[in-house]
């Protein structure tokens, strides 16, 4: 979301508050409402397709495993819907699997939405400009920029192999590219390292940034409230349950 007026920490703080509270509540319709809200936001930000595809890639296997554990092979529950040999599907098991799956889905959808909404350059700049230790900015930068760099290198290797007439299927292409990709990336890192060090990266003392990250007193207040919600929300929801028990 380059050019967004939202500070990356604001998005992250709100997402953390929503996920923590929803997970603690564990009510299916709240989880469904949060997921719908995320979808609406993604549609407005023109990234709904990506959100759905990426989320499905994670949620579907996770949901299937919940079904296998709690619905198909479960021994608890009295309302049996289907019994065939070792397989017993109960209504309680299905409900539990759905509730746990939805909780996971909230975490996944909100997390992926954050990655789609937050510009990685803005995030690194925000960390650099915050009071966080310099090593944190370095760690986040190294993690966030590794994949795009690997993708660029993989593309270059692919072109070089294409020039030499390699016309293979996806598995063969993957095999042919992976070893040179890893070796080339290590070599590249070794060559770049002394020049990055000479340019003072990672900074050890105070540092400044060319890039400005938009922020406002209102956003800061929202962040404080979101952090409070993240810490106290689950407590407020779970404490009565614990005390009741």
């Amino acid at each position, binding site marked *: 979301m380059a050019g967004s007026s939202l500070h990356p920490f604001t998005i992250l703080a709100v997402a953390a508050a929503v996920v923590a509270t929803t997970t603690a509540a564990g009510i299916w319709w709240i989880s469904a409402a949060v997921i719908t809200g995320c979808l609406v936001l993604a549609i407005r930000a023109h990234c709904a397709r990506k959100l759905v595809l990426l989320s499905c890639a994670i949620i579907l296997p996770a949901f299937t495993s919940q079904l296998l554990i709690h619905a198909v092979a479960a021994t608890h529950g009295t309302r049996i819907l289907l019994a065939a040999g070792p397989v017993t599907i109960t209504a309680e098991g299905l409900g539990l699997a759905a509730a746990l799956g939805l909780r996971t889905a909230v975490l996944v959808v909100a997390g992926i939405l954050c990655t789609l909404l937050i510009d990685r350059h803005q995030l690194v700049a925000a960390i650099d400009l915050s009071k966080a230790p310099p090593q944190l900015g370095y760690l986040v930068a190294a993690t966030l920029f590794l994949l795009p760099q690997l993708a660029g290198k993989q593309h270059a290797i692919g072109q*070089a192999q294409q020039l030499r007439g390699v016309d293979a299927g996806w598995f063969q292409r993957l095999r042919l590219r992976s070893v040179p990709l890893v*070796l*080339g990336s290590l070599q590249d890192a070794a060559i770049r390292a002394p020049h*990055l060090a000479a340019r003072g*990266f990672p*900074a050890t003392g105070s540092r400044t940034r*060319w890039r400005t990250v938009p922020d406002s007193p209102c956003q800061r207040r929202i962040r404080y409230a979101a952090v409070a919600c993240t810490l106290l929300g689950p407590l407020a929801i779970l404490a009565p349950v614990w005390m009741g028990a």
Partner: protein
Amino acid sequence: MGRRQTTAAVSLELEGFRYGSAPADALHGISLQLPPGSLTVVRGASGAGKTTLGMILAGMLPRPGMDTMTGHLELAGTRIGYTPEHTPRIDPAGWATQVGLLPQEAGHYLSGIRETVAEELAFTLENAGVPAPDMAHRVERIARDFDLEHLLQRDPARLSGGQQRLVALAALAVNESKVLVLDEPLAGLDARATALVLDFMDRLRRRGCTLLVLACTTGVLDPDLVLDLEDGTLHASPGGDAPYPVTKRGSVTPDAPVLLEFRDADLGYSSGTSVLKDFELSVRAGECVGLSGPNGAGKSTVLKAAAGLLDCRSGSLRATDTGLLLQNPTDQLFERTVLREVSFGLTKRGQLRQQVPQVLEQLGLADVAESHPYELPASARRLVALATVLVREPKVLLLDEPTEALDQEGIIRLLQVIDGILEVGGAVLFTCHDWRFMEATAHRVQHLGGNGPRGRDRSPTTG
């Protein structure tokens, strides 16, 4: 380390330097004093040790616990002694405020983690904690000096090779080091960028900045001192650059078949706008055509399209059996040994596979067939990339900045390769900023973008 008086901006007395477990010294018996405000050129063939010398001066070598060095460096009144038993640890960022190094592959100087050229220029200043107003002032000034203002919001990774070199040079200069070591600073730069860099180097010298240029030839530079690096040591240079090799160029038969043809071609990358529109070019059998134009004009795009790496968006492209040497040889090399690299993709008992030893011999690579391509000097690395193309016997040889990083021997071998392709009825299309090479090699030159007419023929002598 100790403080003492010296008149040189930097001075190196080197008895010997040896890499890790190498059997012999890479450099020995070197005495080098660089006066403030001077321009010194150290010439040498690829692999002679120029980069090693530059890295020693930049404090990047020797690596403690790995390499051994005997001698001392004097910088800013401080003497740093090296013995085989003791290699002092150097603060790289602090040292860089005194001596800055531009590597031969300029892209390696770029951080790779900044989104725009402006941020790349500010990167060193950011890490040093320079206040924002001062940083903005210095970045704007350096962008003006290098005529980079129009590129400030561009992604450095998507610039052309020449533009990347210019950005790297500006990013180095913004640190205002007292001594700059520049490894092939003019390679791949167009005439305008070359003039900008030369002008900037003049201004730096007037401000007292000391410049050391590492290059295969002196070229257009006007240095105070030229030294030759041979057999691991420095010698006073006997004179100018070696004369350019003479090539055999016959005339092109007018009715020779067209091997490569663009008609009203619209070329560009899938995600971006068109780089070239209504592009026209035809290359006949036996013809060698040079593509000239400023950095970023689309020369590499033409070659990539001809090689089938890009599709023509509209218009037509007819290409017969092409082979492309990419601008950056590192992009073209990915195997463990030179032999495996050149043999990659060839069937084991095929006819082309049998020719691998012959191609290696032709390019002078037979002795390094079992070496890792990345361990070779830049010139040899480029020749390995060329061998991977040649072994497939292309009818049309496409060369993207082929002279970049090539030493004199490499250039002679390249010219022999071009002659060989033309003699058997093939064709060559190449991009180059070296007008001596253009004049020696091309039958005609087609200019792209900038001041020249787009897509029209031009005599090499008018460049």
